[in-house]
Structures are given as structure tokens and as C-alpha cells.
């Protein structure tokens, strides 16, 4: 008697697991059937499997989008974190060829040893290359080097039929400019060719600059933007009156050749990692309960005020030297910090406003939050410039990321959503934009107002051409009526 066994080299069938899939903010999401491929063939198999079932598929990286960009309630979710190999890194040019699940951390750990740092990094190093390209993320240098997509030379995209399409600025240029920032609606990145930039030290020179109020923040950004390599301002959104919009700006400049000989040893990747202990002994993974108490007992305003005043001390001791990793990855300083917003989670509301309108509208938004009792526990102000991608969120102006706790009480949650939609109207009336890695509240009617009718129509045409059956869907895409 013989037993039928599959040939040993046959790829295993995709195994879908029922999981609860949420965004980074833990406030939106739901059940999904998840599969984690480890190779390109498995992605094709997964596509065929879902198509055969007549289902829809969301593409997901590390799940760092705050809202519902990588969730698909009741549908399938392809989690690409298992495809995390850097296929090549050229030490002469600094160009890396990455699988989509390679994280920002994987990339800089490879590149820094050769004197390269990713052109654009997010506030956390957990983000994947595929996710970063699909959301076209930006960093603290958006006003100088543009968005993540501007450092992507080319990529391969798998269409719903399982075909691989190569895209670059020269080849399938329309798809190239739409898939970057196209929030996973046109295909799955299977390989990305990504540029990094030369750095001449493992450290940067960093300044802390106290901003007395919102206008002072804008003044500093305008004064320094043509000198500084990175600019980002933490804003105390609890402050009222004369101090409204006060904060602490951080400026960082890269070193010139020969400027920081002692920084040579910081090209060792181990010296770039964010320390995982406080005072060398307390694991930072234990800190979030303390932060949770600050939120639960309504002391976030006090924490913000203390942080603001501590900024004067930092300003006096500036400039100082800091490794690239320590400067960039503030969100990784306290692991699982978002748990402090449990059980409701958080949303981030990040309007992008044209330069002329930003001071007026942002002031209005902060006042509205304060009046309604939904004061963001964190505000981050950045400067931006436009980029050439179809679904871009960037513009010549500023953005303010506002992290707001979500209550489990439905009345509080509803009032927060109402507030955000009212704020979104103010932003859109002023010619502003939104960023889908963060958004959780916009509605279908906002979609053409964010991007303009022409861009939305072009994007829908591409979606119709490459994915006519609406195979790629997320909770975000359904919310926006893509």
C-alpha cells in the first residue's frame, strides 16, 4: 500500500489564519484572514487562492499605519513581514534591493556600516519598505529631500493576476507614480530598489530650540529650513493663551568630511540602536504602564508642561552630538508606548496645510480640540514640500500630527469623530491635505477634495486598468470610496 504525498518541492498552500487585525492606534480594525508569505511564489499563490474564493485582499507591512490602511474587516490580509531579505546592497552607490518586508531598521543596520543612511525614515524603525512606499512616508527632512518615494529607483509590482510589472521613472511611469503613495490599491511590491545617502559620521549635531508659541515655531522653521538637514518640533497642545502652540524644535545637521573624527566608530550598527534600558537597568518595555497612569489620571497636560520647561535646559546644552538612530526613532524609545492609550487606543489627525493658511488654521484646530475636551497628548509640527506622486499628501507648507486618545465610551468616541470631521472640513477648505498612513476619519466625499478631481479620476482609471475587480481593498479604501 502506498500513501499519496505531495512532491517534496511543491510549495505549501497558503495557510490563512483568523486574526484580529488593527492599525497601530488599536482603535480601528477587525477580524481578517491573515497569511504571511516568505517568497514571491507564495504571494502569487495567495492571490490565486483569494481570487478563487471571490474575496478581497489587503496588503500589510508592519502594521504601522495608525488607522485602517492595512486592515480588511472580514476579508483577507497579506502580511509581508516575512519577506525581509535585503537582496543586495552596493557599497559604492548605497543602493539596496529589498524585499517588501525589509524594515527601516534592517536597511540602516546594513547601510550604516558602509557610511550610508536611508534618505527618508519614519519616527519608528519598524516600518517596512513596502509599507513605506505604499504610503509614501516622509521624515523630518521632507522639506529638503522629499518623500520616501523620491528615493525609490524602481520596483516590481505583482498585479491581481499574479503578473510582475517592473516600474521606474522611465518604465511604466504612470504606475510608478501612482503605486508609490497608492496605499496598496494597485499591486503588491515584491522588490524595491532604494537609494540611501552618504553620511560622513555616525552622529549628527543636534540643537534643541524652545519655541515660545505657534508663530515662533513657524518663524524657526522658516529661518532654518535652508540650513538645517532635519527640523521637527514637538508641540505642547495643552498650552493656552499666549503660550498656545509652544514647543521644542529639534534641528539636526549632518557632519561634513573630517568634522567629527570620533563619529567614525558610530558606523558600527550596534552603536546606533536606541537603548532598551533606562539608566542602564530598567527595561523600557516596563514604562508604558506609568504613561498609562498619566493618561488615565488626566495628567498629560502636566507631563507636557514639564517636558516644555525641560526644553530650556536642553537649549542651553545645545548643540550636542547624537547618533542617527537616537535622533530619528523617538517612537521606539518606549516599546509599546501606544498601550498607554488602552483600552480605547488612539488616532492621529495629521492635516497638511499650505504655507499661507497654516498659522491661522492650525491655531483654530488647537483651540477646537481644547474647547471640545479632546486635547491631543502629542503634537508634532513639520515642514513639507510637494512631490511628484499622484496620491501625494505633501504640499508647500506644514503638517501638525496630533495624537488623540480614543475613549471606549461610544458618546466620547462619536464626539471625537465629529470633531475630526469638522477639523477636516476646515483643513480642506483651506486647500489642505491628509495622509493615509495616519487618517482614520475622512469620508468618501473628502477624497476628491484632498487630491483634486483630476488626480482622483486618473487614480480610479489606473485602478480600473490594473485591478478592475476591486481585488485589493482595505477598510480605508472602502471608507474613501476608491
Amino acid at each position: 500500500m502506498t500513501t499519496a504525498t505531495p512532491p517534496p518541492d511543491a510549495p505549501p498552500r497558503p495557510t490563512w489564519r483568523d486574526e484580529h487585525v488593527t492599525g497601530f492606534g488599536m482603535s480601528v480594525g477587525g477580524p481578517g484572514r491573515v497569511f504571511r508569505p516568505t517568497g514571491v511564489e507564495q504571494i502569487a499563490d495567495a492571490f490565486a487562492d483569494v481570487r478563487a474564493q471571490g474575496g478581497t485582499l489587503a496588503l500589510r507591512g508592519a502594521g504601522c499605519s495608525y488607522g485602517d490602511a492595512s486592515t480588511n474587516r472580514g476579508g483577507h490580509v497579506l502580511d509581508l513581514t516575512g519577506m525581509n531579505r535585503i537582496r543586495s546592497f552596493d557599497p559604492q552607490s548605497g543602493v539596496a534591493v529589498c524585499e517588501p518586508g525589509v524594515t527601516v531598521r534592517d536597511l540602516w543596520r546594513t547601510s550604516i556600516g558602509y557610511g550610508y543612511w536611508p534618505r527618508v525614515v519614519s519616527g519608528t524603525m519598524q516600518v517596512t519598505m513596502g509599507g513605506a512606499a505604499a504610503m509614501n512616508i516622509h521624515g523630518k527632512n521632507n522639506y529638503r529631500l522629499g518623500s520616501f518615494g523620491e528615493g525609490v529607483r524602481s520596483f516590481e509590482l505583482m498585479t491581481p493576476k499574479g503578473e510582475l510589472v517592473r516600474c521606474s521613472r522611465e518604465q511604466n511611469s504612470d504606475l510608478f507614480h501612482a503605486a508609490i503613495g497608492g496605499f496598496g490599491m494597485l499591486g503588491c511590491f515584491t522588490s524595491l530598489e532604494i537609494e540611501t545617502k552618504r553620511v560622513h559620521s555616525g552622529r549628527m549635531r543636534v540643537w534643541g530650540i524652545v519655541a515660545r508659541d505657534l508663530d515662533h515655531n513657524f518663524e524657526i522653521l522658516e529661518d532654518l529650513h535652508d540650513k538645517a538637514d532635519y527640523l521637527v518640533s514637538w508641540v505642547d497642545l495643552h498650552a493656552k493663551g499666549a503660550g498656545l502652540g509652544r514647543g521644542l524644535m529639534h534641528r539636526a545637521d549632518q557632519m561634513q568630511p573630517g568634522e567629527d573624527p570620533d563619529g567614525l566608530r558610530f558606523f558600527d550598527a550596534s552603536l546606533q540602536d536606541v537603548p532598551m534600558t533606562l539608566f542602564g537597568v530598567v527595561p523600557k518595555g516596563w514604562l508604558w504602564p506609568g504613561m498609562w497612569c498619566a493618561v488615565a489620571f488626566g495628567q498629560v497636560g502636566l507631563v507636557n508642561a514639564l517636558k516644555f520647561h525641560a526644553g530650556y535646559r536642553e537649549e542651553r546644552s545645545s548643540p550636542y552630538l547624537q547618533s542617527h538612530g537616537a535622533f530619528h526613532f523617538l517612537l521606539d524609545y518606549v516599546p509599546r508606548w501606544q498601550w498607554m492609550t488602552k483600552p480605547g487606543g488612539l488616532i492621529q489627525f495629521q492635516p497638511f496645510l499650505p504655507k499661507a493658511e497654516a498659522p491661522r488654521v492650525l491655531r483654530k484646530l488647537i483651540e477646537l480640540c481644547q474647547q471640545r475636551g479632546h486635547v491631543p497628548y502629542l503634537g508634532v509640527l513639520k515642514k513639507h514640500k510637494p512631490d511628484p506622486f499622484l496620491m501625494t499628501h505633501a504640499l508647500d507648507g506644514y503638517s501638525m500630527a496630533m495624537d488623540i486618545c480614543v475613549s471606549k465610551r461610544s458618546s466620547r468616541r462619536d464626539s471625537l469623530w465629529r470633531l475630526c470631521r469638522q477639523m477636516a472640513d476646515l483643513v480642506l477648505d483651506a486647500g489642505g491635505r491628509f495622509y493615509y498612513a495616519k487618517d482614520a476619519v475622512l469620508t468618501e466625499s473628502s477624497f476628491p477634495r484632498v487630491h483634486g478631481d483630476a488626480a482622483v479620476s486618473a487614480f480610479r482609471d489606473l485602478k480600473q486598468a490594473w485591478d478592475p475587480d476591486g481585488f485589493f481593498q482595505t477598510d480605508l479604501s472602502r471608507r474613501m470610496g476608491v
Partner: protein
Amino acid sequence: MSGCSGTCVVVGASSGIGLAVARRLAQSGRKVAMLARRAGELDAQASLVNEALGRELARPYPHDVAAADDAEALFARIEDEWGEVDELHFVAGLMPEVAPDEFDLDKDRLQIEVNFLGAVAWCNAAARRFQSRGRGCIVGVTSVAQDRGRVGRPVYNASKAGMDTYLEALRNRLWRRGVQVTTVRPGFVETPMTSGLQLKGAIAADRAAELILKARDGGKAIAYVPAKWRLIMLVIRSIPSFLFRRLSI
């Protein structure tokens, strides 16, 4: 202090501990001849050092340590091109994956050629010159793995033990000529060579380099890096053979 101020030679300088040592030497203002097999990597690393420091303190010399016969000529060429060498760091090492039941002479030979014969070739070339000049410093990086023969990598253990014993002999020969020989036995260090292993408590390569140069400055004969490995290996060495063979360490 080692008292050395001439050109340094670092063998195995394209990655890991060797690269970290080369960077720290250059950072302290020393001229460093960087040697490694992979020319592209080596060029990139030497350029990075020179760019970061704003002057030429590193030069790449592509060299395959397994070609031991070439060592003497290359040593002479480095001195011709870049002045007298008075410090050698031999950090090159090979640790291939070996299955528990594998006995592959090709793999074994290569480890002996790189880890042992290569070390002998470069240290001989240095020793001959340093003894006649009456000064100089040789630092050889072996491993805590040389302290016991273990199931996992018999020839790696043996080649490092061979190198370690050779360095001891060299130290005994040369101390009367004013030449320092320091043996470094690193424990767990994060390097490309160990990237496939799950090493708990591994230190950064740069930290290992810092401790190696401290041992050099302190004129140490044998340095465990970090120092706690002296105690750990004391315990491991004292385990009787009938017991050791039953353990999975």
C-alpha cells in the same frame, strides 16, 4: 601605552572586529593598512574612514590570507609604500557552518590556512622586522573557542588553539627584544561572522576593539574580551572531559 606610532597593519579589516580596530586606530591618527579578501568591501571601508576623518589614514590592500606565501612580499610592499610598520593586528578568521556529523577536509583545510597558517605568515613577517628593530607590537585575535575542543566546530577550535599557542611562543621569544605580543580571546561579539548565531549578551564590535586597544596599551599578554570571559572559561576549562562530552556547550 604601546609606544607605537608608525603604520599599522590590520589583517581582516573589511568587517567585524578587524574593521572596528582599523577605524579606532585611524581615529587616533595612525596610518592603517587595511587587508581583507573582498576588494570592493575593503575599498568602500577605507574610503569611508578617509572621508570621515578628512584625510588619508587608511589604505586598502586586498589580500587572501589563505595565500600565506604572499604575506612577506605584501608586508614589504606596505612598508615601501607607506613607511615602517610597527603594529600588526591579525583579526582574520573563518568559521564556516559545520554539521555535527560532518568531516569535510576542504572546509577544515581552509580554516587551518586562514586561522592558523595565515596568522603565522603575517606574525612571522612582523616578528622578523620588529625583533631586529627592537620594538613593535603584535596583537593576535584568537577566541574563547580555543580553550576547549567542542562538538560544534572541531577545526575552528583547533586552529584558534594553534594560533594561541603560537602567539604564546612568539611572546616568549620576542619580549626580550622589546616587542609586545598580545593574545586576545573574544567571547560573544556581534560581527558578520557570528550573525547567524543567537549570541546572548554579545558586545558590539566597536566595544571589542576598544577593549583590544586597551589590552595593547596595558601591555597585556592575554586578554579576554570582555574580561568576564576569563572567569567563564576558567569554569569551562575545569570541567572534566567525561562530563564535558555530555554537555551541549
